[in-house]
């Protein structure tokens, strides 16, 4: 049933979108996400999808049109990167607070300035608190699988939140990889038909979307929105289980790699996890008990589960492909450290900021991080909490 193909990440995600066959796609192209909507527009042109394709004049409009379409009860998607996401920002929050099940591939790219088109996670980290669910991908296969699962997650009656599917710009989006794809019909059966919980087009039951809510009610709406995120985890796992039933591909909240008996470990998102696994294998062969944890679901943040998976480590490095410029540490570190500290874990934790603006991360870089961790595990002392990997000193 499954077919092996060789595709770039963008091609794989465009294919997933074709199979999801959304009612509306509104998009404005931006590197490195451009090809997703460009390829998708050829599917529209060739009549391979039933989608209304809306070419808009900016990303702010792309997200606005997507929100409008979702409010009308359509399955609506868009895709973007970096500065495009930044321009959407106002409406990105509205998509979540209006509880619209939108799916958006986000091809991670550095935010300006200086102007740069290459991979880092500053775009996704900028909207990590916007109320969207964030799924992260290590390679094209995961980007494809996550895109398909994202629709089911977003539309889950208990969730009703937009989902962002993150994948590293160029490293995943433009690299050719082998992956397994599903037949169109299998994807369509997996997602099923869509009955929106509310729609502006139901004339028998008129509704208003996005009204004013001032001091006497805004807080209650936000609390209710927070609850959707608090309750989302088991439903995300239900969808993953169904997906594994169809594909054999197992997904959880995160992936643990040789972590159970590890003494030193790193937490890293996205494609760098692939590089780090090679280093873990090499260190294991040398007798170093190294492990790795790759978050897949970053929002909702699986705090409790992470602590369980990481709490036994002697030393842990959290890798951030974005800086928070807060004179403290990067965003993923701040989340992980807060979860660990809140649970009274004794693991020594350090932070590495790496790969900004597409700076390459090699095996030797990751090895340096593990060496640092081994030193900390040996001495029991954290010398530097905040470290920059691969920057010229």
């Amino acid at each position: 049933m499954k077919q092996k193909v060789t595709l770039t990440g963008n091609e794989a995600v465009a294919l997933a979108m074709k199979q999801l066959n959304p009612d509306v796609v509104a998009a404005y192209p931006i590197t490195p996400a451009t090809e997703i909507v460009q390829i998708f527009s050829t599917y529209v042109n060739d009549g391979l999808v039933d989608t209304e394709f809306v070419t808009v004049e900016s990303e702010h409009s792309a997200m606005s049109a997507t929100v409008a379409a979702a409010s009308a009860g359509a399955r609506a998607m868009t895709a973007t990167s970096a500065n495009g996401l930044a321009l959407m920002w106002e409406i990105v929050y509205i998509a979540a607070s209006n509880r619209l099940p939108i799916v958006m591939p986000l091809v991670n790219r550095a935010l300006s300035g200086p102007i740069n088109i290459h991979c880092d996670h500053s775009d996704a980290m900028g909207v990590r608190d916007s109320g969207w669910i964030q799924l992260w991908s290590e390679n094209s296969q995961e980007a494809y699988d996550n895109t398909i699962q994202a629709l089911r997650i977003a539309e889950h009656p208990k969730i009703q939140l937009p989902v962002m599917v993150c994948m590293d710009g160029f490293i995943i989006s433009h690299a050719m990889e082998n992956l397994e794809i599903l037949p169109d019909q299998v994807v369509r059966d997996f997602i099923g038909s869509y009955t929106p919980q509310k729609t502006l087009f139901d004339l028998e039951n008129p509704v208003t979307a996005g009204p004013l809510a001032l001091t006497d009610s805004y807080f209650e709406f936000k609390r209710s929105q927070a609850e959707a995120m608090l309750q989302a985890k088991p439903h995300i796992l239900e969808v993953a289980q169904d997906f594994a039933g169809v594909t054999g591909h197992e997904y959880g909240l995160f992936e643990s790699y040789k972590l159970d008996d590890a003494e030193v470990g790193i937490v890293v998102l996205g494609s760098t996890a692939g590089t780090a696994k090679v280093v873990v294998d090499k260190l294991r062969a040398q007798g170093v008990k190294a492990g790795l944890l790759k978050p897949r679901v970053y929002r909702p943040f699986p705090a409790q589960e992470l602590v369980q998976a990481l709490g036994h480590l002697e030393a842990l490095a959290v890798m951030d492909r974005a800086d928070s410029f807060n004179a403290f540490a990067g965003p993923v570190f701040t989340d992980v450290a807060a979860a660990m500290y809140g649970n009274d874990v004794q693991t020594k934790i350090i932070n590495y900021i790496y790969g900004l603006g597409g700076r390459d991360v090699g095996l030797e870089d990751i090895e340096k991080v593990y060496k640092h961790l081994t030193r900390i595990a040996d001495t029991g002392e954290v010398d530097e909490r905040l470290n920059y990997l691969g920057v010229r000193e």
Partner: protein
Amino acid sequence: MTTKSWRETVPGGWITEAGNALEYKTGDWRSEKPVFIPENCINCLFCWVFCPDDAILVEDGKMKGINYDYCKGCGICARECPTKKKALVMEDE
């Protein structure tokens, strides 16, 4: 002022009943209020046409006064009232 718990809110703040703006008494936004002087009124109903809310009370085609539950005190009615001796004047709340 609503007293609903967050658990009773409609997810996403959608309004699912039509016409429930009636339940929202906006009169307490007012810092000035229009006062109706019936003896000056010629029942032209300009005030009713121009009032941006639904705060001018009309019965049998005649101006009857102000619904202060909804009147926001914008002063448009008093400004548009065409009579020489105004039938609507603004006063401080």
